[in-house]
């Protein structure tokens, strides 16, 4: 029996070795991911009662601050206050003792709590003197533009994103409905939980930051990607091919045809078909250039990846794989006009416009401009980085030219900023219930771009290509005009 007893020892030792390995994985290797999990409230619990810095907009408007509170239980000395209410709710996020945190409160928790400043010589001195330290986070977002976005949406469900194309700074990002983080962050936890539950139960989902966590069919705005894929593949030039004038197009391997809105007849070269947003022509372009080309350009624009925005839990914008698109021409045709296998967040579509605007280069989107210590000294500044080279500068220039014509004489005339060359593309994605999402993406000035926008207004009645131009384009135009004043 001695041999078996020794073997039993070996078996048990192996089992305990496996536990040890698993412990190392959980406690060291994967620990950061678990610590940052939205369901994990430990970081908030640690910091909830500590002094905490402010979150301010680019022009210095206070968006979040800690104020003294008279807690009847004596457990807490201070709580978070959000003076702008729901205007920045989905950006700052909340800071709740029981529910954890979200938004900037989460991403920049260590800065707000003063933990990163402690690494500086000044911070070390303060720490030795026992002085409290906090950091203020200055955002790239403008309170003025954010308010304009909210006013322009005028209560309709939808999202407005404005971004500085040169460095990726988010200038405005507002979705309706939004929420006020104040009630979620109060020290009375029962009241905070009630407030949170009410938001969770709300069918309009105000807690959902539609701007970067919800995806939609991009509709015709995706033709910017399809056109870029055509140009990149070399199969499409501004002059060739000229797609046949047609009211419907039937892709290979299917009998169900793709038709234009209102059964209109259209066709022609790249600029012509983009100006009138010709479904049949772009569907045929997608089928002709092949799944590999379409997929490669879409992924170069950032599809199938989560944009590295400095806010937690962003969504990726999915598109079918190259293999699927290659093997299935009907899916490829519908995907080419922004339906079927492709979905996009409003942020992703803003990044598509920003990439075309910035010579094909998409800068990493971000909401943090800089962190200051409690004396107002800048501790660190966001260093802009390139996220993607979506297309070559030549392709970007051609697409810019085409998108300018869409604004000058096509579906997006209402995006026009007075006196400034403006580039854009509308979209109307049918939801199948008689309503549709009205989209517009664009940027200005077209000759030396500074600002890109994406606007989606959800569930507009009717479905015609005009919907995006009629409903979304005026919002985008107003945003572009105001944003150009903010970033001169």
């Amino acid at each position, binding site marked *: *029996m*001695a*041999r*078996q*007893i*020794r073997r*039993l*020892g070996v078996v*048990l*030792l192996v*089992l*305990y070795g*496996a*536990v*040890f390995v*698993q*412990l*190392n994985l*959980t*406690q*060291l290797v*994967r*620990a*950061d*991911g*678990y*610590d940052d*999990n939205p*369901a*994990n*409230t*430990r970081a908030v*619990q640690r910091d909830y009662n500590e002094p905490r810095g402010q979150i301010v907009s680019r022009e210095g408007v206070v968006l979040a601050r800690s104020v003294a509170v008279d807690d009847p239980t004596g457990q807490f000395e201070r709580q978070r206050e959000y003076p702008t209410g729901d205007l920045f709710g989905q950006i700052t996020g909340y800071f709740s003792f029981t529910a954890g945190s979200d938004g900037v409160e989460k991403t920049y928790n260590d800065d707000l709590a003063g933990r990163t400043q402690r690494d500086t010589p000044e911070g070390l001195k303060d720490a030795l003197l026992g002085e409290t330290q906090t950091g203020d986070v200055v955002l790239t977002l403008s309170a003025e533009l954010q308010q304009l976005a909210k006013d322009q949406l005028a209560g309709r469900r939808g999202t407005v994103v404005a971004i500085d194309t040169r460095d990726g700074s988010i200038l405005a990002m507002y979705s309706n409905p939004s929420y006020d983080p104040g009630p979620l962050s109060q020290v009375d936890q029962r009241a905070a939980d009630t407030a949170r539950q009410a938001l969770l139960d709300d069918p309009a989902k105000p807690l959902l930051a539609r701007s970067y966590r919800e995806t939609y069919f991009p509709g015709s705005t995706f033709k910017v990607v399809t056109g870029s894929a055509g140009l990149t593949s070399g199969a499409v030039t501004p002059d060739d091919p000229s797609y046949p004038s047609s009211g419907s197009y039937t892709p290979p391997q299917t009998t169900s045809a793709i038709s234009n809105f209102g059964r209109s007849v259209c066709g022609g070269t790249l600029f012509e078909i983009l100006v009138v947003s010709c479904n049949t022509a772009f569907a045929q372009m997608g089928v002709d250039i092949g799944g590999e080309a379409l997929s490669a350009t879409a992924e170069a624009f950032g599809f199938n990846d989560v944009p590295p925005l400095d806010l937690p839990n962003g969504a990726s914008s999915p598109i079918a794989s190259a293999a699927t698109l290659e093997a299935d021409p009907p899916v490829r045709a519908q995907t080419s006009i922004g339906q079927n296998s492709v979905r996009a967040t409003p942020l992703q579509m803003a990044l598509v416009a920003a990439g075309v605007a910035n010579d094909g280069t998409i800068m990493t989107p971000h909401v943090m401009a800089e962190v200051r210590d409690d004396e107002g000294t800048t501790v660190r500044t966001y260093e802009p980085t390139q996220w993607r080279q979506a297309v070559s500068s030549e392709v970007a220039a051609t697409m810019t030219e085409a998108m300018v014509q869409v604004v000058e004489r096509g579906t997006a005339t209402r995006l026009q900023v007075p006196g400034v060359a403006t580039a854009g593309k509308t979209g109307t994605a049918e939801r199948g219930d008689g309503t549709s999402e009205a989209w517009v993406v664009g940027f200005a000035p077209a000759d030396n771009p500074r600002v890109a926008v994406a606007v989606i207004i959800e569930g507009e009645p009717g479905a015609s290509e005009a919907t995006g131009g009629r409903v979304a384009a005026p919002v985008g135009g107003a945003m572009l005009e105001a944003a150009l004043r903010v970033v001169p």
Partner: protein
Amino acid sequence: MIAARRRTELGLMVMAALITAIAYTLASLGSTASIPADIGPILAVIVGLLAAAHLATRRLAPQADPVLLPVAAALNGLGYVMIARLDEDLAALQATWTAVGIGAFVATLLVVRDARTLAQYRYSFLALGIALLLAPLVPGLGTEINGARIWVHLGPLSFQPGELAKIVIALFLAAYVVDRRELLAMTRRRLGPISLPDLRHFGPLLGAWGLAMVVMMAEKDLGSSLLFFALFAVVLWVATDRAAYLLLSLLLFAAGAYVAWRIFDHVQVRIDTWLNPWTDVSGKGFQIVQATFALAWGGLTGTGLGVGHPDRIPAASTDFIFAAIGEEMGLLGATAVLVAFVLFIGGGLRIALRARSPFEQLLAAGLTAIVGIQAFIIVGGVTRLVPLTGITLPFVSYGGSSLVANYILLALLLRMSDRANQADQADRADATQLVER
């Protein structure tokens, strides 16, 4: 003259007492920033209990292994500190149960002077084991807590008879199998690739195993069910060296597990939350997710005793105490607990190897396997290495029945160790005499 083994044990016991007292003080400093007011009485109780156990081994088992008792004491002490930090009322009860456990330890050493005598009561043990296992199913006696019907209430007392059952079943198995191990190792029938012994010898075992399984299913106590299965498999395999038994056990277990999975919702939930707890972090996956967060938050060195949030983990003082330790003492503390169990297993198997009779060999191996496998089941479950099945962490978790049973188990191991070492000494003395002549 004091045996050298007892001097070693004394030194280790002092260390166990120091670890416990220091950890207790640190936990109090961490949560209230003050030296605990009751550190004097607490220290007195710790020293008193450990001294009692140590004096008992001096008198009653002077040549027993010197490592096992201190390892158990350190685990018990660490568990107590964690429980005290989580729930003061439970801590007082745990201290009482520790006293009862050490009382049972001394009593076992007193009553059982030679473990071999236990073999003759094999069928009494079987009957007792079955009675203990069935007790929670008796209406009016058993109660269901947290979905598992494993408790028995007698007046003000409540206990889990399953904890004691595992020892008496191990006693029965060792005694029954050791007599028949040649017969069981012989193969008479073939069942496909598996050769089986005569059903006459094997039948009763299969019956006992089936009964244990059925009872466990009725009580919905998956952890104990798994433990009993492993105990059967280990004892049969060690006795016969027939891998077929392991294979057969594995097949039977797989069948049982599949049936359980089909029949019981809670088994499906366990499997689902093991594979992916993240789909329902606030519902079904809550407990295991909280345990994962606790371990991750602890990191390498832990938050420090009294400074973490292990109170967020449901059942932190019982089944999930390992996660609480991992949060506040980090990877280092959690690894120390694992090492303690490895030391216990090593000591137990050494006793099995040195035991003078086959019965004692098998019994020591079986008892050691119980502790080693039970600790693995819960520690592996808490770390999401294997599906979670609720069971106590021996010596560490809160729980009276568990503590008492494990101290009795420890006493039996030390009893066998003492006899083997005494016999060795006698052999050596004979040899010396022979040489001198």
